[in-house]
């Protein structure tokens, strides 16, 4: 039987980090023991009207304590329900799911945009090479101090209220950052920008993608992205984000 079994997990803490952004620790030793940076967990509503999973990336893993941390933004009724939950309550969770990042490279650029920032934290902790961390926000920032222990942090905000005014690529350019590997997670337009940048600079890039999911385990074919080559499993130019992904090398996928 799989370790990714769906189970009730006790919430070990759930606090608001910034407006509508929450940080939840789950007491889930089996998830923690298997989890890798870049993988995700499916969370389930307790309301029978909302049946599908909410995929949330793993932000931190505490193997000692058997806990994983999820940082999420209220985007609709499901995440709103989670935000209202308190420590000691249970939540149904399945994971760890997906492939996770490949730990590689000597000088890395970790790029997170918006709610794509959280998975970069555990990656930053586990990646042992030199790290430059670029975090892009619309306006209000969160989590950025927690990154400081792991590398130099560069910030971009769309409104210019902090760091570079603009997006993550603007921050990279402004700071003339160089690297031999890129790890990125964020909205698709940002990932497109990162892919273009990586191609231009000829840097290898691992991108974490997002798509609506139903099963979360590779069975429904709901969450595919377009791949450059015919995929081994699907036998067509589609890859399942929940199974082959969510992390892909930039040249593997079309965005």
């Amino acid at each position, binding site marked *: *039987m*799989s370790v*990714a*079994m*769906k189970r009730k997990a006790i919430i070990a803490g759930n606090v608001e980090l910034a407006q509508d952004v929450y940080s939840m620790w789950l007491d889930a030793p089996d998830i923690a023991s298997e989890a890798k940076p870049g993988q995700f967990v499916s969370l*389930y509503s307790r309301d*029978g*009207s*909302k*049946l*599908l*999973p909410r995929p949330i990336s793993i932000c931190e893993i505490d193997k000692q304590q058997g806990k994983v941390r999820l940082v999420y933004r209220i985007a609709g009724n499901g995440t709103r329900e989670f935000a209202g939950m308190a420590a000691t309550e249970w939540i149904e969770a*399945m994971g760890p799911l997906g492939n996770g990042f490949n730990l590689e490279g000597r000088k890395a650029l970790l790029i997170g945009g918006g709610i794509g920032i959280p998975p970069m934290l555990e990656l930053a902790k586990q990646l042992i090479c030199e790290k430059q961390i670029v975090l892009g926000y619309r306006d209000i920032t969160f989590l950025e101090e927690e990154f400081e222990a792991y590398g130099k942090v560069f910030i971009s905000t769309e409104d210019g209220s902090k760091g570079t005014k603009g997006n993550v690529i603007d921050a990279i350019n402004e700071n003339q950052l160089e690297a031999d590997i890129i790890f990125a997670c964020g909205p698709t337009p940002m990932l497109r920008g990162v892919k273009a940048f990586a191609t231009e600079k000829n840097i290898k890039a691992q991108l974490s993608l997002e*798509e*609506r*999911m*139903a*099963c*979360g*385990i*590779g*069975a*429904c*074919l*709901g*969450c*595919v*992205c377009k791949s450059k080559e015919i995929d081994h*499993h*699907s*036998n*067509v*130019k*589609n890859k399942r984000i929940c*199974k082959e992904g969510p992390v892909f090398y930039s040249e593997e996928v079309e965005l």
Partner: protein
Amino acid sequence: MNTSVTLAGITFKNPVTTASGTFGSGMEYSEYVNLSQLGAVTTKGVSNVPWSGNPTPRVAEVYGGMLNAIGLQNPGVDMFIKRDIPFLRKYDTKIIVNVVGKTTEEYCDVVERLADQDVDMLEINISCPNVKEGGIAFGQDPKCVEEITSELKKRAKQPIIMKLSPNVTDIGEMAKAAQAGGADALSLINTLTGMKIDIHRRAFLLANKTGGLSGPAVKPVAVRMVYQVAQAVKLPIIGMGGIATAEDALEFIMAGASMVAVGTANFINPGVTAEVVEGIEAYMKQYGVNDIKDLIGCVK
């Protein structure tokens, strides 16, 4: 206690299978359920060549269910034969292969290529609402249903199950047409065509605009249709649509289904199929039912 059922000469250890497209080819779920516990595994629709399906988003959550517009992405029958049949044959369960096509010829092609394969039954999907050609177009006109059924029946070596669409005025009429064409069994329901709009983006949620509604929300319609078809024809029925518990499965059985398929519920609880099998047994024990056949169609 006997939970086995026989449809068109094939005996299943229990009446529980999976709804096509919700269980892949069993591979992914084999980590969650011992497939040998199931009466059968019904696989994702397979076509003569690989299909890449529809653009994303392909799925959307709706109240008590979901919409999907996968568009029958599948690796094609060759890959299916090479990879998926041998995988499933490792388990002590029957194999029902769901077949799709854009034209009668394409359906025939798949059926012919499966003729010598070690699979137990073929389920012909003439009811997919998510592809432009084929699919539902065949399933909404009794003449087409009869014709394609008899064409396939000529070629198939395995018994054939015609899978009916609920998007019709009178499903009893479609059932009769399939019977007239020589179908060995029927399965119902496929999904109800639905739509969701994102009012903030003012756009359809699915790239395909419409999608198929499945999950608990459709169960009352599905149970009614199973009952209606059971009154209209003599063929055995595989009932599905919103089954998430043994209680749900028993509703279908009592309405006239000889077997049941669990679909969308797999996405919410990957271990659900085994729970349904066990729950049916528990019910039979509780009420002293010795043979599941005594429950089939017992509510009239």
